[in-house]
């Protein structure tokens, strides 16, 4: 036709940006700008009444390093992550393999496994609160049948965090199972048959064929599980409130208390930045370390 006019080329260049504009606006308003604001705020003191916020440098971070509850919450969070992530992923895989086979009542079983995911965490926590109640809770009633005494599952230092972790695994495993199930169904049954003719046992087929082909999904689940391990604290509010004596206090719960209970926003923003840094670092490590071994079809 003709040489494109400058106006047209400008319009052509503007088009993709215009298409991206709505999502950019939303992300900027609710994610990117707040992150930058938080980072800036973390170097400032908390405004109090007549005293406005002022630049304090790394003082908030120094406070954090000196705060024993921060360290307790960080360690609790790591224990919580290490205790729940492999267990829920392993359970999810086992359940997916089980309901992927030819068994009677398969649909019902799949639904049952998925139910915890559909329930709100608050409702889940309340159900488990009943399970854990000393003396007349479900666990103690069953323990009583075998002659054991009452246990204050949520009230003692030793059992409170594991009790919280059990609830998390129970809720997360069903959710991850759905991803594994979907991935298993994309693997052609021919592969298993070909391996069987070559003499591979079920275990070998899983180890050499199924598991490697599930790697992309495992990576996806792992990233989500790590994020959830630092993000899901709803049930802690209902079950323990972080106690006893910070035994179930984790980073986000600590952050909530500092920011909205003690109203120390300067310190809270510093905590937020640290939490964000930990999560970004972990996601990066996972992608780099696992990325090499993941086969995408």
């Amino acid at each position: 036709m003709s040489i494109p006019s400058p106006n047209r080329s400008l319009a052509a260049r503007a088009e993709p940006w215009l298409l991206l504009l709505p999502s950019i606006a939303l992300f900027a308003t609710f994610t990117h700008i707040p992150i930058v604001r938080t980072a800036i705020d973390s170097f400032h003191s908390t405004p109090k009444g007549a005293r406005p916020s002022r630049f304090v440098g790394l003082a908030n971070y120094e406070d954090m390093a000196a705060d024993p509850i921060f360290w307790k919450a960080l360690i609790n969070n790591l224990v919580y992550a290490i205790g729940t992530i492999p267990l829920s992923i392993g359970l999810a895989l086992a359940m997916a393999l089980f309901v992927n086979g030819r068994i009677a009542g398969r649909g019902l079983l799949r639904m049952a496994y998925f139910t915890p995911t559909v329930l709100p965490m608050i409702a889940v926590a309340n159900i488990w609160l009943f399970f854990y109640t000393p003396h007349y809770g479900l666990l103690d009633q069953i323990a009583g049948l075998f002659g054991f005494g009452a246990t204050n599952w949520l009230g003692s230092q030793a059992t409170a965090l594991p009790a919280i972790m059990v609830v998390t695994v129970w809720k997360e495993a069903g959710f991850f199972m759905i991803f594994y199930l979907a991935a298993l169904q994309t693997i052609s049954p021919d592969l298993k048959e070909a391996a069987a003719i070559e003499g591979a046992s079920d275990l070998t087929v899983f180890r050499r064929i199924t598991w490697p082909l599930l790697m992309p999904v495992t990576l996806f689940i792992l990233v989500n599980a790590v994020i959830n391990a630092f993000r899901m604290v709803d049930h802690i509010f209902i079950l323990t409130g972080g106690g006893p004596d910070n035994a179930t206090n984790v980073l986000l719960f600590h952050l909530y208390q500092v920011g909205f209970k003690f109203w120390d926003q300067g310190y809270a923003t510093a905590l937020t930045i640290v939490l964000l840094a930990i999560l970004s670092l972990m996601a990066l490590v996972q992608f780099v370390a696992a990325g090499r071994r993941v086969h995408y079809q």
Partner: protein
Amino acid sequence: MVRNAGGRGRVSRIEVQELTKVYEGRKAVAGISFRVEAGELCVLLGPSGCGKSTTLRLIAGLEDPDGGTIRIADREVTHLAPKDRRISMVFQSYALFPHLSVADNITFGLEVRGVPKAERRERLGKVAALVGLTDYLKRKPGQMSGGQRQRVALARAIIAEQPVCLMDEPLSNLDAKLRGEMRVEIRALQQRLGLSMIYVTHDQIEAMTMADKVILMKDGHIEQAGTPAELYERPATTFAARFIGAPSMNLMRFGGPADPILGVRAEHMRLGPPIGDARDATVASIEYLGADTIVGLARTPDETVAVRLPGRAGVRVGERTGLAWEPAHEHHFDGASGRRIVSPPTGTAASVGLPASAAAIPETTSL
């Protein structure tokens, strides 16, 4: 080269007796029996749903039969696991492991069976050279063309050095040119290695060009078994007559539904001047193929006839013409059952309901 079959040939016969498989009350395989001799390439041929793939999967041990026995190399294997049957198999989808390299795909079975690494490497080298994959061993299946993937599947089957190789529509995902090349290659490999092969296909050209023996199946039973020439020259039923050969055999009814059906192959027919009886037809289509031409004719409102003429045909669409053939080229089938009538009563014309005078048609005028 790969260990030759000299010794193994003696024992790698496959015998299937009264094999039955029922799916949801329907007999997918209805008590079939056949035998494949050592070193023979046997094609299971038939339309989709005829039970040929199920038969192959039963022999492989991927399905459990509801009746009958399977013997491989004089050993009953009916209920053995696939790995204990001394077979290899090529799947229609190739069933390559997408996350493994070509080399690892080919040697997967050797590794699983605990063959030492040095021997694995040696056998891989030989097999890769045999199928022309030497330069592709480090690639992943996803980086290869359909034809190359087919070779990987073939190599994986060969390297096992099992005496029996099963193939399930191995060429159906390739384009026509590659299919033609692979037909020749697979046949050459099979003969060179002395494999006993059962080859499933719905493509009668593959059956005709590759097979020592063709087993034509329909609705779970064997319609006809024999050499390609036997199936072509003496089809046992109208189904076999229609299925083998392109264009398929012309089947003509000159009488009522109970009268015999007359079959004549397209290349055995000639066109002549119309003579005013039931053998006149109207030219409906002309397909020029170069060396010859297929003329399609409408003989009755619901019966078409194809005639293969050398070179170009001197007829036009819509032209009225007569059909002619030698009595020696006639096939006769029972009008009701469709079975071949082995010795038709003398006077073939009468037997199919034609007036006797019309049987001798003058040699066709040059067209």
